[in-house]
């Protein structure tokens, strides 16, 4: 990709000449010249500048009035004088700050933003030291919980419109709006409904004052009492970079840490608010060993290690592991080596097993925004599986890209489970007219982003084949969304510990021992079945659950905030997870090291020194070996009576989220999504209660009619789909 020639222009800022590309924003231009222009409303990630706060007033040669620097762009020969050198500009900024402070309550000692507040900082630097306003300030009712996680203080609001611009132009949830006008303007949610959106928490970070604050951090700590640790979120395969704030050894909040290639500084509510699961009541704190007829007994680590080593040794090589996919690479590697090298086992359940061919089309997530055309394949909503990817897709659409979604709710409608077949058709230039058309445009475009969000076991290989056949070059990217946060790293660790894939332990024969690593695996019904056939089960988990019924030894597990190690995200980027707080017990790696000593496998009890930077680089693309051949694919789901059920795993689910009370409102409502035609045929409207099931037996759910959904298909969140088959009948209750 040849970069277009950039025209450089010379701008004079406060007497300093600086050369920048033409059209660069004046704030950035001034920064390049070493001049800081204070801002409130300006935030380039929110789209075009609005010039609302007037904090950035500057004098521009040839213009009679002061100009808002944020709305100006660099033009050749421009002369800008900021408040540093222009008395007029300084007076203007002082005036703006005086106006902002007129009705801003001086409750800084009460306000959680105090100490890390841009308004405080700028007032200190540019503002008046005394007030000339001796009238009662404007008051509002406060604080108003606009959602269980965010509280709004309208008195403190300086109406910079950052939050509404985020809601309108970034997350596109359109829920935060401004109401009334003039001095009575307020920020509110649409129709005063709770702000329920996947990215709502970001507005608390955007707010330059203490108007929008996370309720979970309310009155928890002051900036000088906290420690911020740079780490990486371990809750979905995106791996957003975060700061974890701790006070007195407890996590108090999670903030985003801008990695421009991964998250652009945004963080979803799951990543932001799930930290409270560390303090869940049902957390395991000691190893538990099953004692005959007495159930579980809490024991010391020495006894637990001995018991585990005994159980594994007695398995005689018939050992299998069930991974969660959330483990660090080091943890997974320790487990894999224990089994494959120490015990002679070769069986594992891997949550993700991507073909390495996808690495030939590796690209940073930010490449999606620059794509000309994006293709999204698969049944799983991208928002629910890797939310940041959805934001990148929206950014691409706003930048003018075409986003083609292929699936049961896509712009190109295909039956559920047909991603593999569709990809073959796209690659071969066949399929419906729409598909052929899309295929043609994909081939013509020079920058393409393909997002694969499905659960087919060979999606990686199929996606790579599709990418190869479409001729994806530099500037294009292929993103296969794994099921689990570190699924790619775990699989890699498993492969490296032995030879090849080994085998999947889902046979019928008896198993010597089963290692269940983590809560996600412990919750998996497949693992529970496997455990029934195992003579010895060793599980690590954070919380008590069903698995405590069938495991023989349970060791307390750690959260991603409590361990050190490497994780590999969906791009294939290795990032460093840091221990933010100490777990209340031994962490898994130390336990495994001790088990390793018993079994003669040397395992380091801690992760090696940081191998990657705080802002991890993406490894270069791998060479594509001969593109794999297409295996003929058929729709996985067959025909059946009633509506075909698509079950997706919602973002706000999993053992961690379920234990966070303040996130309960984000979890999917008990509802079933129906296509418009199906709903009409059954006389169902959104909000109706419907009976879902087969042969008269069924459960009551709320109906949600979706125009985009394919007729004959119904969609439901996994946690409400228990016991429902692949096909259901839906009737109005």
């Amino acid at each position, binding site marked *: 990709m040849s970069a277009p020639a950039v025209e450089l222009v010379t701008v004079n800022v406060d007497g300093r000449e600086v050369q920048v590309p033409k059209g660069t924003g004046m704030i950035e231009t001034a920064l390049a010249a070493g001049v800081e222009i204070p801002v409130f409303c300006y935030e380039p990630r929110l789209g075009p*500048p*609005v*010039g*609302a*706060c*007037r*904090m950035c*007033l500057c004098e521009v040669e040839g213009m*009679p*009035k*002061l100009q*808002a620097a944020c*709305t100006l762009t660099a033009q050749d020969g421009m002369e800008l004088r900021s408040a540093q050198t222009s008395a007029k500009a300084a*007076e*203007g900024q002082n*005036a*703006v700050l*005086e*106006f*902002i402070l*007129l*009705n801003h309550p001086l409750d800084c000692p009460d306000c959680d933003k105090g100490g890390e507040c841009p308004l405080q900082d700028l007032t200190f630097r540019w503002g008046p030291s005394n007030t*000339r*306003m001796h*009238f009662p300030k*404007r008051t509002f009712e406060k604080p108003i919980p606009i959602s269980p996680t965010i509280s709004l203080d309208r008195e403190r609001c*300086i*109406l910079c*419109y950052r939050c509404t611009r985020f809601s309108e132009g970034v997350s596109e949830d359109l829920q935060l*709006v*401004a109401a*009334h*006008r*003039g*001095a*009575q*303007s307020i920020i509110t949610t649409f129709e005063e409904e709770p702000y329920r959106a996947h990215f709502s928490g970001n507005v608390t970070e955007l707010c330059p004052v203490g108007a929008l604050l996370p309720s979970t951090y309310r009155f928890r700590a002051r900036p000088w009492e906290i420690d911020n640790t740079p780490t990486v979120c371990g809750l979905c395969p995106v791996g957003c970079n975060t700061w974890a704030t701790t006070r007195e050894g407890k996590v108090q909040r999670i903030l985003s840490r801008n990695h421009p290639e991964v998250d652009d500084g945004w963080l979803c509510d799951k990543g932001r608010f799930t930290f409270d699961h560390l303090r869940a009541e049902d957390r395991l704190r000691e190893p538990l060993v099953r004692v005959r007829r007495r159930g579980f007994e809490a024991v010391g680590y020495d006894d637990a290690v001995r018991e585990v080593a005994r159980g594994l040794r007695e398995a005689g090589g018939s050992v299998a592991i069930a991974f969660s996919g959330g483990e660090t690479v080091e943890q997974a590697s320790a487990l894999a080596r224990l089994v494959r090298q120490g015990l002679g086992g070769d069986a594992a359940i891997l949550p993700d097993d991507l073909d390495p061919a996808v690495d030939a089309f590796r690209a940073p997530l930010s490449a999606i925004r620059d794509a000309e055309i994006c293709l999204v394949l698969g049944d799983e909503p991208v928002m629910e599986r890797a939310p940041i990817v959805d934001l990148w897709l929206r950014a691409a659409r706003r930048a003018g890209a075409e986003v083609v979604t292929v699936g049961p709710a896509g712009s190109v409608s295909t039956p559920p489970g047909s991603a593999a077949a569709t990809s073959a058709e796209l690659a071969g230039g066949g399929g419906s007219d729409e598909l052929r058309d899309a295929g043609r445009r994909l081939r013509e475009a020079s920058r393409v982003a393909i997002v694969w969000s499905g659960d087919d076991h060979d999606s990686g290989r199929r996606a790579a084949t599709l990418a190869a056949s479409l001729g994806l070059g530099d500037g294009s990217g292929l993103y296969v969304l794994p099921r689990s946060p570190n699924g790619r790293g775990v699989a890699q660790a498993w492969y490296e510990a032995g030879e090849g894939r080994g085998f999947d332990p889902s046979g019928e024969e008896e198993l010597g021992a089963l290692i269940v690593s983590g809560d996600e695996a412990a919750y998996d019904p497949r693992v529970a079945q496997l455990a029934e056939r195992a003579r010895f089960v060793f599980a690590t988990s954070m919380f008590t659950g069903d698995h405590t019924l069938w495991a023989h030894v349970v060791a307390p597990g750690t959260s991603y905030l409590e361990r050190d190690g490497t994780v590999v995200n969906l791009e294939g980027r290795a990032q460093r997870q840091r221990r933010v707080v100490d777990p209340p017990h031994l962490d898994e790696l130390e336990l495994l090291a001790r088990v390793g000593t018993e079994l003669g496998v040397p395992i380091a009890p801690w992760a090696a020194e940081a191998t990657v930077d705080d802002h991890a680089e993406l490894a270069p693309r791998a060479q594509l070996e001969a593109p794999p051949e297409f295996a003929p694919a058929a729709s996985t789901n067959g025909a059946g009576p009633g509506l075909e059920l698509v079950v997706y795993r919602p973002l706000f689910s999993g053992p961690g989220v379920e234990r966070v009370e303040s996130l309960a409102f984000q979890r999917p409502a008990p509802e079933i999504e129906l296509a418009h035609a199906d709903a009409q045929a059954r006389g169902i409207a959104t909000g109706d209660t419907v009976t879902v099931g087969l042969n008269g037996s069924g459960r009551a759910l709320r109906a949600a009619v979706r125009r985009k959904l394919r007729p004959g298909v119904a969609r439901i969140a996994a946690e409400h789909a228990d016991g429902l088959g692949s096909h259901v009948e839906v009737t109005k209750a």
Partner: protein
Amino acid sequence: MTPSGLHEVLLRHADERDLTKRAEYEAVGGYRALTTALRTDPGELVESLLASGLRGRGGAGFPMGRKASFIPKPDQTPNPIYLTVNADESEPGTFKDRELMLRIPHAVIEGIVITCHAIGAETAFVYLRGEYATEFDVMAAALDEAHEAGYVGPGIAGTDTNVTIVIHRGAGAYICGEETALLESLEGKRGQPRSKPPFPAISGVYASPTLINNVETIATVPTIVGMGGEEYAKLGVENSAGTRLFSLSGNVVKGGNYELELGTPLRELIYDLGGGIPDGRALKAVIPGGSSVPVLTADEVDTALDFDAMAQAGTMLGSGAVIVIDERACMVQLGLRVAQFYMHESCGKCTPCREGTRWMVQILRKLEAGEAEQGELDLLLNVCDRILGNCLCPLGDAAAMPIASYVAKFREEYQRHIDEGGCPFGGESSLEGVVAPVDQHHAHLRGQIEVPIHA
């Protein structure tokens, strides 16, 4: 024949005939300019507008021809070009656009079609003030008539020009008279001004090139096409060509709209045409261009009504709303009432206007109550000064300029409010006929009094 001083160009024949009917309008030569214009090259039309020296009648007085020439040609832009007519006439004291729409709606429509042809637009929006209910009915009826006669729609008058006119009714916000806020409102968003650049000529409604003009400006276009740009430029004085509708109101005997040649002295309008001040009271001040322009004192009443003379006198012609204030008025009360209006109408987007107008009202209220302290007058002036020029759109300036001028020109009266601890009029002052008291507005909101919305 018109009474002395009047120079009716736009409103000629409007007294004799009902020009809201198409047939009547055609009978006096209406729609003839349209047929000529459609056969003229658009470039020539713009040239003619430039030559006419027609300056925008909305308030800013920007030459219309120049504005039209900023619009890219249809082959230079991938987006459609739009014309937007600003009929959101909300400036206190201004009622000229409603008169034009009520009496010569066809001239407005004719002007729209000609302008559309000149800039290559196929869609025109008329953003009509929400409270103008009768005007809407009249305009809509005229539009229907024009449509039937083939003056609007596809293939106008046998040419391949297509023009669609959409009348959009506002929802009652003064700020939507500001061109970019109008565009936002038109797009269905919150009516708040956009930051410029990009100017509407490049990126206006739906991010497309848009020409925005006032109703009176547009209504003048057929006249210019009819008589030729150069000929029109001979009307009026240098830099202020043509005639204008002045809305005379306040303490005068005969208020109303008067079409005058630009350059006519203010005295002539107030005394000769308006019949002077009732009951022989003395003139105190004149607001020459709507509530947002600086005030003129009685001594300055000989200023000519043209752009340059007004600028020289430190004020503006604005929207041409001449408000006459007699000796009964307390200028502090007037200042308070004007400031209250702008506080109420501030959109809340930019800081100086949102917070500053409220502060101004608070200070003025204190002044009026006689509770102000020495120094607060300077504080008020300083607040005005800090709003002026620091805002996103002209509304902030429009609030600060008049107040600053009241204090500057009637400083003594303001000072007495402080020194004497109350109004020197001792409750005898009256703004009757100048502005509606704020209580009346509130009472109306509460439904306690019925104010006829349209006569």
